[in-house]
């Protein structure tokens, strides 16, 4: 297994207001693997995706660190193909263009297909993502489709690029539960079929648990813990990761523990507490925690956490 993507000491900020949205994060992703980014709204998980795809919005800039891609073949390096799907599929599709236009222009751009070839490939892609009567749907507009169908169209569009890395930013958040399950299933299948790597962002640990091989927990622009996903769910080391897991309601009737909310609220990025950003909300915090941000340290096999007082396994 070779490394596809390496992110080193990435720092992203809003220069005009001198606010660091992402503050020195490190991670890597092997080809064919899935990395899950999890955390509350505003923790920087979406911005991490945008920084990797090199499409940060205006007014936000990468000011430090590196994002590098390695190619399999021959050890040569080139920009790999990255495709992205978004949280709200219907507003991510241009309302004045047909589904056919959307897919066919992408097929021309990425694969050089034109005319009938492009049309046939577009139909094949739509069928692949589970849209029936695909040929007749090419003339449809996004407003004629449901959110779930539009997300399938976005995935078909992403496949047109034959990506090595698919970035999925909250791909199922706007969908209802049954649709969520279908989309997750589709992503799993496509990953196995094409061998592409997947970076999936979600605040839903269930989604991460289902799709990801590894997970990284983010809090206030930093990765506070990273581990294989099963390990993270069973033996979280960082108190924040532990708290996130405790927040999840269980559907097991034997499990009588109610979900436990995390006390306090996420601090604003322009007034982050000194030291570990989580310490004011943390039950295990000590004097040390308010002085310096803890360095990332191994707490298990391929399992690292930034905490002075990790939760014992």
């Amino acid at each position, binding site marked *: 297994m070779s490394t596809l993507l390496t992110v080193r000491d990435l720092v992203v900020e809003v220069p005009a207001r001198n606010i660091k949205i992402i503050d020195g994060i490190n991670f890597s992703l092997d080809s064919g693997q899935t990395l899950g980014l999890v955390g509350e709204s505003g923790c920087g998980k979406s911005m991490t995706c945008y920084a990797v795809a090199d499409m940060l919005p205006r007014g936000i800039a990468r000011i430090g660190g590196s994002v590098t891609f390695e190619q399999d073949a021959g050890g040569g390096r080139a920009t790999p193909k990255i495709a992205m799907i978004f949280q709200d599929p219907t*507003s991510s599709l241009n309302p*004045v263009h047909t589904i056919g236009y959307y897919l066919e222009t992408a097929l021309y751009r990425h694969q050089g297909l034109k005319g009938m070839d492009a049309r046939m490939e577009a139909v094949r892609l739509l069928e692949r993502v589970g849209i029936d009567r695909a040929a007749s749907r090419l003339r449809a507009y996004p*407003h004629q489709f449901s959110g779930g169908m539009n997300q399938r169209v976005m995935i078909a569009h992403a496949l047109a690029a034959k990506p090595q890395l698919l970035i999925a930013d909250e791909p199922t958040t706007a969908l209802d539960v049954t649709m969520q399950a279908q989309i997750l299933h589709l992503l799993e299948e496509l990953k196995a079929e094409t061998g592409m790597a997947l970076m999936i962002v979600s605040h839903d640990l269930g989604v991460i648990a289902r799709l990801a091989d590894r997970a990284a927990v983010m809090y206030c622009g930093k990765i506070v813990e990273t581990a294989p996903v099963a390990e993270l769910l069973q033996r979280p080391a960082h108190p924040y990761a532990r708290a996130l897991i405790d927040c999840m309601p269980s559907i097991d009737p034997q499990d009588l523990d109610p979900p436990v909310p995390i006390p306090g609220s996420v601090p604003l990025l322009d007034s982050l507490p000194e030291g570990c950003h989580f310490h004011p909300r943390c039950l295990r915090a000590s004097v040390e925690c308010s002085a310096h941000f803890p360095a990332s340290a191994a707490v298990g096999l391929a399992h690292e956490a930034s905490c002075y007082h990790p939760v014992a396994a």
Partner: protein
Amino acid sequence: MTAFILARFLRAIAVLVFTVTLVFIVLRLTGDPAQQMLSDNAGPEALAAFNEKWGLDRSIPEQYLYYVVNALRGDFGVSFADGREVFTVVAERIPKTLVVTVSAFILSLLIGIPAGILAAVRRETALDKSVMAGAVLGYSVPNFLLGLVFIFVFAVWLRVLPSSGSSTWNHAVLPVATFALFNAAAIARFMRSTLIDVLGQPYIAAARADGIPYWDVILRHALPNAAIPMVTTIGFVAGGLLGGSALIEPVFAWPGLGSGFVNATNTGDLPVVQAMIVLFTAFMVAINFSVDVLYAVLNPKIRKH
């Protein structure tokens, strides 16, 4: 789509009939044309004779019926002022006004749309700020005042262009420029804000993420969406052309519908005033109807209903 257009067409006809009726009644309630047309010392016999001659002694519903029946046959009566057919009086002024308004309209689109696009794309730069400063200036100065400034600069001071009349093409330059700059300012401002709004939409971010070249994103993905609200604004501008001609033409003594309308109102030439209002209304209704049809063409959500 056909049903949509048919419904809009019927609505346009209804608006036209309503306006003609309203104008007819209001004009007859706002002063006695005989008093206005005849000299102050005209006797009661003269006034009565005038009223009888033009049918003004009959009841308003009677006059209205008579007017509508004749209007449908293309007969709008004769001018009180010189006894010529109203149709001729109005028709001979139409080309003069079209020359100024149509060229000003095209010019304002050619200036306003690219200026607005550039300002939106180069947002917050010196280019954007100077375009917008120009637009605010052009939009806030009343156009008759701008006309006077142009006359002062180009006719009085530099002496390069004639200030009034319509005998040569040079005479059209100042009225067209006055008209076009005012409208271009309005179009540029709205183009900029509409495009900035569209550029903030998720589908634009998605298009960029897909690696579509920058100007392709602007031209093929953003502009078709911006065109939908733009049509409304451009419709307003087009609808204001004839009304604007009443302000601008007198400044340059340009013998079009605008100055004709002002003259006829001043002299109380009722049939001419009325015919011109009907024409202005018909023009406005036609513009609104075209805006509705263009909406349907540009917006798949309406088209595919």
